[in-house]
């Protein structure tokens, strides 16, 4: 098992110094941000590490791990809302999106026996699922609102032909979903070609055989792909319902609207 110790961590801070020096040299003005990011990362990781130490003790109930997953879903949903304030009702939508994705993806992985369900597998896999879906969830919500706002005339022309709102919105929902999904598809296609992904790297460093590490990594990539597809779909369905009335009118979405 690979262990770097505190001295190893201290030495790795040299790389933060490299980033700081580059910022100073190129006058980027990011030295404070770099330092703060490094400090925050260390503090947050240590906090998580301490919690995980407690949770991974023998005999600890898996309910605590499920609680952890629920907290992750909550924080992710708040983060999504913060990053896309112009999308109406995004917090509850994100809760539903991440929750549905968790049920579906973790249901497949644990329910069908791909992984054994325990604290050691649940928390990391749930974290990978939620963390990797965050960006796509924000992107799809913002993209759909932008499309419906910028192409309002076109949308209303469809409504004026007697199309119901879910049909009128279809081309724009499709566009937003494609925009959100294509990056993850491309990442999945390129995995292993350019860089060894994180889960596989961590497992190899921990002494797991490369072949087993690869199998786990592939399963993780599929988990993320399925999760991104689920969360983005739930978000677009929810946003679409919020932006149209029951009598098939498009509500005004201003650039400044927070939708709260």
């Amino acid at each position, binding site marked *: 098992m690979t262990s770097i110790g505190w001295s190893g961590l201290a030495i790795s801070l040299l790389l933060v110094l490299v980033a700081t020096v580059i910022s100073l040299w190129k006058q980027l003005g990011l030295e404070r941000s770099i330092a703060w990011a490094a400090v925050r990362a260390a503090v947050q990781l240590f906090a998580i590490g301490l919690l995980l130490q407690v949770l991974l003790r023998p005999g600890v109930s898996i309910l605590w791990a499920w609680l952890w997953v629920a907290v992750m879903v909550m924080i992710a949903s708040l983060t999504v809302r913060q990053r896309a304030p112009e999308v109406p009702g995004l917090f509850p939508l994100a809760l539903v999106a991440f929750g549905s994705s968790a049920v579906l993806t973790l249901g497949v992985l644990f329910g069908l026996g791909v992984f054994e369900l325990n604290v050691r597998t649940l928390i990391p896999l749930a974290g990978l699922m939620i963390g990797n879906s965050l960006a796509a969830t924000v992107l799809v919500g913002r993209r759909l609102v932008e499309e419906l706002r910028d192409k309002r005339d076109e949308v*209303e*022309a469809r409504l004026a032909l007697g199309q119901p709102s879910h049909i009128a919105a279809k081309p724009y929902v499709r566009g937003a979903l494609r925009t959100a999904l294509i990056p993850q598809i491309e990442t999945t296609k390129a995995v292993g070609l350019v860089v060894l992904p994180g889960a596989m790297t961590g497992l190899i460093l921990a002494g797991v055989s490369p072949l087993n590490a690869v199998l786990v990594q592939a399963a993780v990539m599929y988990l993320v792909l399925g999760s991104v597809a689920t969360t983005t779909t739930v978000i677009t369905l929810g946003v679409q319902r919020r932006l149209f009335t029951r009598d098939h009118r498009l509500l005004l979405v201003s650039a400044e609207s927070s939708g709260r």
Partner: protein
Amino acid sequence: MIQPTQHRFIFDNVTLRGRGRLRLDEACGSIPSSGITVLVGPSGSGKSTLLRCCNRLEVPSAGRVLFSGNDVAALDPLKLRRRVGMVFQRPTPFPGTVRENLQVAEPSITDVTATSTLAQVGLNPEFLDRVATDLSGGEAQRVCLARTLVTNPEVVLMDEVTSSVDSAQRFGLEALARSLSSSGVGVVWVTHDLVQMRRVADHVLVVVNGRIAHQGPVSEVDTEAPESVRAFLSGETPQESS
């Protein structure tokens, strides 16, 4: 007393609040069943808002709009919009060919019907395979009108449809409106162009500050309208901006 069947639309104290202001203020009036009715008024007066209440793209905060004697609020909005078509100020061709644009309105439309609809708006059959978004403004607006006519509407709402086309296309679209009206399709035309109003209208509704300040035949507008309206229509009063 206004007989509902003599009028295509009746506006009964229509009020609409939105965007922090009163956009329609107890608007009362009617649009006759025949001829071309022009809604005219300064920019921001509520003409387009009133028009959009006719096909329920906007819903009044108070009052009601009657279409052929029926409250628009009680009608199925999707069926209403098939009967009350609309062409917008900015041409809105959908991605794809002209044929595909017409298919949005009627998925099972045949080429025979599509061709005759294009002929109705002055476009030849070759346009069916042209990419709609590559067309000129005037051609695209004609495609939008053809798309609307595919649903066999009883009336077409035309919201400043000539404002983004050149003068040659403008007269062409006005002639199309006249032709539609002659064939029995009602036309409600919105404009802020007073000269165009006189060319196009059989009847006029003058909309000022969210109210219908005058309505009647265009031939009587210079004699029967209130002085303030006559001043506006003669161009003496500066047009307000929204």
